[in-house]
């Protein structure tokens, strides 16, 4: 069902946990649907210097969380905003179709954390309008069979 990469990130998730004083926090999903992802970031000079996540959800949810945090760590906020849920799924060698819908929200959680950071630090000028950041709440939809 899952690719080897998914299983690797699921069984050895990177960047699990919380940060002592995060600069930004993003959370997407809800327990009713069975997937919640929370991402905390540290930002230094417009760069994500540290990142942690906590996820309640299935294998895909945990693996995408791990992969998404790996993909944006050390990146500028602008670069990180360009990492889409779809890109995360692709970096994991794909997800089963039924998992694309609700379990592939880790990039959104990262975006939410960046938005939170930007909103809290409105005085910074990084050339990004936090209001322009759209948080995809329903992953990348596959066409229904």
């Amino acid at each position, binding site marked *: 069902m899952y690719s080897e990469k998914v299983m690797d990130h699921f069984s050895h*998730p990177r960047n699990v946990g919380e940060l002592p004083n995060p600069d930004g926090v993003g959370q997407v999903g809800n327990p*009713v649907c*069975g997937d919640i992802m929370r991402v905390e970031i540290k930002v230094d000079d417009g760069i994500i210097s540290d990142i942690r996540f*906590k*996820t309640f959800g299935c294998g895909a949810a945990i693996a995408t969380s791990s992969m998404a945090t790996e993909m944006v760590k050390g990146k500028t906020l602008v670069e990180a905003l360009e990492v889409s849920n779809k890109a995360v799924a692709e970096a994991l060698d794909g997800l089963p179709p039924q998992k694309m819908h609700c379990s592939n929200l880790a990039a959104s959680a990262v975006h939410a954390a960046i938005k939170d950071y930007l909103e809290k630090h409105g005085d910074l000028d990084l050339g990004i309008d936090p209001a322009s950041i759209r948080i995809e709440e329903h992953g990348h939809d596959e066409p229904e069979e």
Partner: protein
Amino acid sequence: MNRIYLDNAATTPVRREVFEAMVPYLTDKFGNPSSIHSYGREARAALDRAREQVATAIGATPEEIIFTAGGSEADNLAIKGTALSMRGRKSHVITSAVEHHAVLHPVEALEKLGFSTTVLPVDSEGMVDPDDVRRAITPETFLISIMYANNEVGTIQPIEEISQIAREAGVLFHTDAVQAVGHIPVDVGSLGVDMLSLSGHKFYGPKGVGALYVRRGVRPTPLLEGGAQERKRRAGTENMAGIVGMGAAIELAVGELEEMLACEEMLRDKLIRGLIQRIPDVKLNGHPTRRLPNNVNISFLYVEGESLLLNLDMQGIAASSGSACTSGSLAPSHVLIAMGIPHEVAHGSVRMTLGRYTQEADIDKVLNVMPGIVDKLREMSPVYVKTECGIKDICAQAHACDVAQPCGE
């Protein structure tokens, strides 16, 4: 790695004796039982014998057994076939919210054909109230279908009471006994049912073969028409190996039923007790006593079922879950939801179903590894916050938290 199989409600291994009984029908005894030559006659004899084995096991006569491709086909035949036979005469069907989809979906399909349906609720332990059945019956009602034992939570329904209500009202009664046959005593006479579904792969027979018991005089309209097989009630060249396997399996299962039942109950209770003792914030789903001897269904709060399953699988333990994640739909198990279990608790449910090959050591292994897995996932869970009430986030929205663990205790 030594694997441990705790998913016997999904399917069971084929018994060695059953496999051996099947082999001739996959090798030299390959005849079609409809043929009159010697190959055909030896197949016919085997078919007759298997029919007798199935009939005997549930207290029926051979003519009352219709072989099908499994439990789902048996359910479809009972529901749709009866409805088709009643078309233009009566129009109402009653079932319950915790039926298998092989009953619920056919019932829904009937609505599109102009039938009306009542889907009865269940209580928090998954039980149908016979009084609800009685009240739901109208002069239009021709069929009641209530399962014998639930495949997810193991709750055993009061079939005899319901069948009596049906009989008094002159309404046909079908029960999906797919999870019951071979595990708890099933006798169509004392149950008083008109139709009963069973499936070979739930009692150590092969997959893809089942049967519908149809009481003499009851005539669902066939769904599969063609040749004269099964006395024209179900067309198609018979799955000889499958049918012979199911016959052997049911005879063996019923023969050792009491012994197995006691043994499974013992292990089941050890597993339930052990998990509750070792892991905080867990909740047993289903009825505490009126429950299949091999069913354990437990919600582990704050964690999601599929993650739990995958972790168990990495330790060589096979189980299943009522989480939406496994199915890919948003809503978790319709059974748990019908029992009033909140979505987030349902998402954390794991079903472990024991079988005749389950060893006490297997249970010990599960009890050993489960706390670590749950801990690890909870540590990773954004909804898990260790406070006096460990359920902070969920409590705000979940009315059934107090079922799981009294909040603020």
